[in-house]
């Protein structure tokens, strides 16, 4: 069950992406026009994202062309994994309680 993506989570993701984005510009790996396109894409996708999985999928698509977002991917995936772990733990506990 995917946890709902809160505003705090959204803000966190924006921060992660912004850091990577600034790094991209600093290294001169993106042109002026591309920047506008990417910024628009990021805003659209992150605004409408409902779960961390959706964010992860989107970042994965960026990663295809811009390896600089690797770190962002790792951080978002870590959140996704954390939620999965909580989910598994929850089920185990439920199982244990039920068997007792």
């Amino acid at each position, binding site marked *: 069950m995917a946890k709902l993506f809160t505003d705090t989570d959204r803000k966190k993701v924006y921060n992660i992406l*912004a850091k990577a984005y600034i790094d991209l510009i600093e290294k001169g790996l993106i042109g002026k026009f591309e920047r506008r396109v990417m910024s628009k894409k990021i805003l659209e996708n992150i605004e409408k994202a409902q779960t961390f999985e959706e964010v992860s999928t989107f970042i994965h698509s960026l990663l295809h062309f811009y390896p600089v977002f690797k770190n962002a991917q790792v951080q978002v995936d870590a959140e996704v994994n954390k939620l999965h772990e909580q989910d598994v733990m929850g089920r185990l506990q439920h199982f244990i309680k039920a068997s007792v």
Partner: protein
Amino acid sequence: MAIAMTGGEGEKANVTGKDLAAAIAPNRGRAPVLNKEVAVLRERYLKDAGKSVFQAELEPESDKVVNFDEMHRVLDSEQKRVDAEKDPKKHDVLKKRYDRLELQCNIYDKLLNNEGLAAMDNVEQQTVINTMANLPGFAESASVAIGGRLSVDQMMKVLNGKGGVVMTRDEKKALSEIIQSMANDDRFKNRLSKSLSTLTLPSEDAALAAEISTLQGGIRDKAKKEDELKTHKAIADGFETKYPSPAVRESVRTEYEDYQEAWNGLQKAFRPLDFSPTTIAKIKAGLEAEIAAAAALARPTAHVPPAPESVAYYRALNEQLNLFNQVSPIISDAAKREQMNEYKQYSAAKGRTDALSTELAGYSDKEKQIIQKESDRGKYVDKYKRKIEIALNEEMKRYWNEVTLDNATKAAEARAAIKGEEDQGVKDLAEKRVKIAGDMLERFTQLSYLRYEGGEAKGWDDKAIKDFVHKDMLSRSPKQLSRDMLDRIIRNRGQLPRAYGKEIDALLKDMGVGAGTPPATAREVLNTIDASEYQKWAEAKIPDMLGYAKARGYYFDLMKFKPGQAEFLLRAYDEKFFANATDAKTKYAEQAARLMGGDLKEFIDGGSLNWKKVKEALVGKNWPEGMKKMMKYLAYAGAGYVLGGGFIWDAGGRYIGLDKVLHTLSNVGSIPPTIVGAASRAGDWAINAPAEGILSGINGIVPRIVGGVPVGGRPPIPPIRP
């Protein structure tokens, strides 16, 4: 020097050249910011978080788009105006205006299209630098920023490209960096973009421009026509000059027209290749032969009329012959032929002149229209051109005011805050030094006049005490004496018991001795204390010292003064000194006056000496004695304080706390009990004697008391007289 702002509002901090230098070269000595755009984004990220970074990227830049195409169109139209102007003076004026405009447009183009200062030619770069040089304070701050060697005037010469100033390579490099940095600063360029992006011409201007262009096309060949008119006029004038009489010209005209008619007739009839005299003669001969032949046929014979066609033919031939006869005289006369030719040209020229004049009159109308339309257009274009001319200057000034001066103000405020803290620190230290020095004098003066061996007090430094009374008092001012006391404490601290020595070392350190580079000496630290403090200490400590010395048997008041010495004392110790010294020892002032035997009773008001009266009394009197009395008072005041120091006299002048003190001292072991007993029976005189006895006891001397007066030892302090 406070820098004035251009067009700024409100109060600003006092900005100096140093602050401006810091603002225009903030990265001097630091690694350069590689990407200003990145810096801006980072700032945004830190301020407004990540989302704002992406939102910033999508902000419309339409308010910064400069229409360079339109700028070039305006330039082109100006160029046409210049080219169209025939008057040399006006042409020069227009040309200069155009050149200025073109220069500005090129500068904007290169600055705003990311080519920067480096891409500009010398004239363009110098224009930008001149703009910077005219900013108030720029030359001064640039001079400071590159090292401060050049004066403001020299820097202005360098900036204006006037030469005559030698700069080192580093200075040139630093200046170049400052200029480049300012010219290429995004904040300046953004301001310039925003300003120029508002430049736009209305649609009416385009319509007018098209009309003007059409009109100008219509009069493009004006010069050619004018030349043509000139040529034709010359021909016409030439003929009229040759034949000034109108009658003659009329006659020539008539003759020409007849001739021309005849000539045209002949041309039509014969279509000769040429009408040279030879040809004409030939044709005429043939014609005459034909006429002769036709005459025969046209003549009636024996009542037979000639055929009509023969007669007509004969007549036609004769008409032709008449034509020949008309043209022959002209053709055979070269001068006539010339005249006819001249008239022909004249006639053509006159006709053309009239036509051209009419055409050119039409051109004048068009020119008037062009002028009118240009004037109408000027409403829009002049504003546009003015903006181009001043944008660089205006935006540079705004950038200077809003960015550089703002940064410099912040630097000035930071500097003032640091200075304020430093000043407060200096003030605090000064106050601390005064307090510590005062404490040292209070606590260690007497200790410094003791003699020590191995850190143990063995006695008094009587020589020093004696010198104080007999020499120093008569040769040193009060301030010098108090300073001498401090110096003595510091100098002799090594001899004092270790604890005192360490304490004085610590106090000196607190005062700042040994701090700084080079380390401050005690002398230097004491020199920072204001002379008025030394005076105050003198007023407190000199009485102490005199009292102390008196206890040791050195009676200042028993000394014989020479007039010169008295004079010195009079000058060194004014009534203010005594008044302040008295106040310092207020407790004992009354007592001291009584101890002196009341000699100065008449000068005492309410238990205090009236120094004005004292001085008045001394004038004209034996003032060496007067000074002695004054010093005697001091000595007694000091003695009362030093010897008292916790001892209290009652109103009658009797010591009322002696038993307690003696008891304490005896417990300490310094006073033999016999002395204590003897002292308590001594009565009034014993007020002083026990004190003497205590000291003597400390010294190891036990005076014998005979008849209430001790023998041997030091002379006692005289008893109180009512």
